């Protein structure tokens, strides 16, 4: 199934760094996100976009992960050649990530 079924997401930008939150709709799926949505998978998913490292921060209180991708905005929001210079649409790309469905999911 797609990550979109279990989580929602928002992208933010600072300079040449993009951050993407991944927030479980239901907190009981946080552990699954923790196991399956790793920094390595996110980096691989954004091949050709995330040119630098991807760091994951964990926020169990709100059942959320925060991915920080450096060198991901075409040299920076204010100088990028990209159509979406802010990378606002990156969150939707991440929700396309394929994940294994939780056992309670019908």
């Amino acid at each position, binding site marked *: 199934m797609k990550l*979109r079924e279990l989580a*929602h*997401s*928002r992208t*933010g*930008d*600072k*300079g*040449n*760094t993009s*951050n993407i*939150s991944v*927030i479980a*709709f239901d907190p009981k799926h946080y552990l699954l996100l923790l196991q399956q949505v790793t920094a390595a998978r996110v980096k691989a*998913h*954004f*091949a*050709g*976009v995330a040119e630098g490292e991807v760091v994951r*921060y964990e*926020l169990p*209180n*709100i059942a*959320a992960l*925060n991915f*920080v991708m450096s060198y991901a905005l*075409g*040299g*920076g*929001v*204010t*100088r990028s*050649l*990209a*159509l*979406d210079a802010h990378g*606002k*649409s*990156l969150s939707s*790309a991440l929700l396309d990530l394929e994940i294994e469905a939780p056992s309670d999911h019908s």
Partner: protein
Amino acid sequence: MMRTIRIGSGAGYSGDRIEPAVELAEKGEIQYLVFECLGERTVALAQQARMKNPDSGYDPLLEERMRTVLPLCAAKGIRMVTNMGAANPEAAARKTAEIARSLGLSTLKIAAVVGDDVLEACKAADFPILEFDGTVRQLGNRLFSANAYLGAEPMAEALRAGADVVITGRASDPALFLAPMIHAFDWAMDDWNLLGQGTVAGHLLECAGQVTGGYFADPGYKDVADLARLGFPIGEVGEDGSLLLTKVAGSGGAITAQTCKEQLLYEVHDPTQYLQPDVVADFSQVTVEEIAPDRVRLSGGRGTRRTGTLKVSVGYVDSFIGEGQISYAGPGALARGRLALDIVRERLKLTGVAASELRFDLIGVDSLHGPQVSAHANEPYEVRVRVAGRTETLKEAIRIGNEVETLYTNGPAGGGGAWKSARDVVAVASVLLPRELAKPRVQFVEG
């Protein structure tokens, strides 16, 4: 009984809608109305405007916003805080005073916070650029502005001195909201946990509609009612830092745990270290609780001692960007789009266009995330070819769009709707300035 204040967020960016602020002033039962209108690059562009005309350099919508909102705020005793001063807070304050006089509101006290302009200090030292290898000095004569993100102290000082309207230039966005809290509750500037929780409030409010259902809706997954009448948020803050987010009853949009969680992490990197001029805020222990429809409580924000530096945005002339677009449709649209890109790629080489960076996109196919992320997409009915390149001169930039436009008569079948542009790029980069080198101060103008 615990004291509380209600702060409305009247704008989340320079061009934001005006009517939600009217709704907040009329029906929000607020004591403070904050307008965040200054983007990362906006202050640099405003500096350029001020260089051409010393009386300009403040927000282009200032006059319209003030004319609309000042009478409502004056009637209810609502005090305003805004960064609409951009590159010229003094001129913005003079203009606001003039507007107030013309509206018969000459008793209003209007204050400007100045001192965020640190260009001379940045030129005198040679600070390293945070985003790329290099220093301020190496930007040479391309450098034209440097503005420090000021904290809440000078704005709180202006409120303490009785200002009805506080107009600043570059300041941290959450600090615009922190200032009324510090003033109303006499928070100590070294009570790091209070300042950290106050920063949670400021951060949730600063983008206005982004916490009431804007930048959020996804039909079937995250539905939001009545986005065309999206209301802006109100933060109800207690003197202990407790925070309840809400909005005017009957306004469009929604405040839910989901909208608040998304905004909590917006533009945040390490959630334990959200660097602010007044505090290093820690969002990692924040909890979010829906207590009623459109009423969400956020608790657990903390903080540690502020750092010794202030972030500074330096504005510089980076380069030029030339761009061209053209569309193809129907059977074979994708193949013709790809052929068009190949032709332009070769033409730019053949004609020797001097570009340091080039980008070849098919809008509708791979323009947003590149060919690798988009590899499994289906064939679309129409595609739009887009070529963009970075050059050192405007003349070279113009040549890029020209090579796309000539596809009309020299390219694949059925190319339509060609468009081209060439523009200079004013970019911003960041440096860290020892905080004592910025000397903010408050100036009142006569109402």
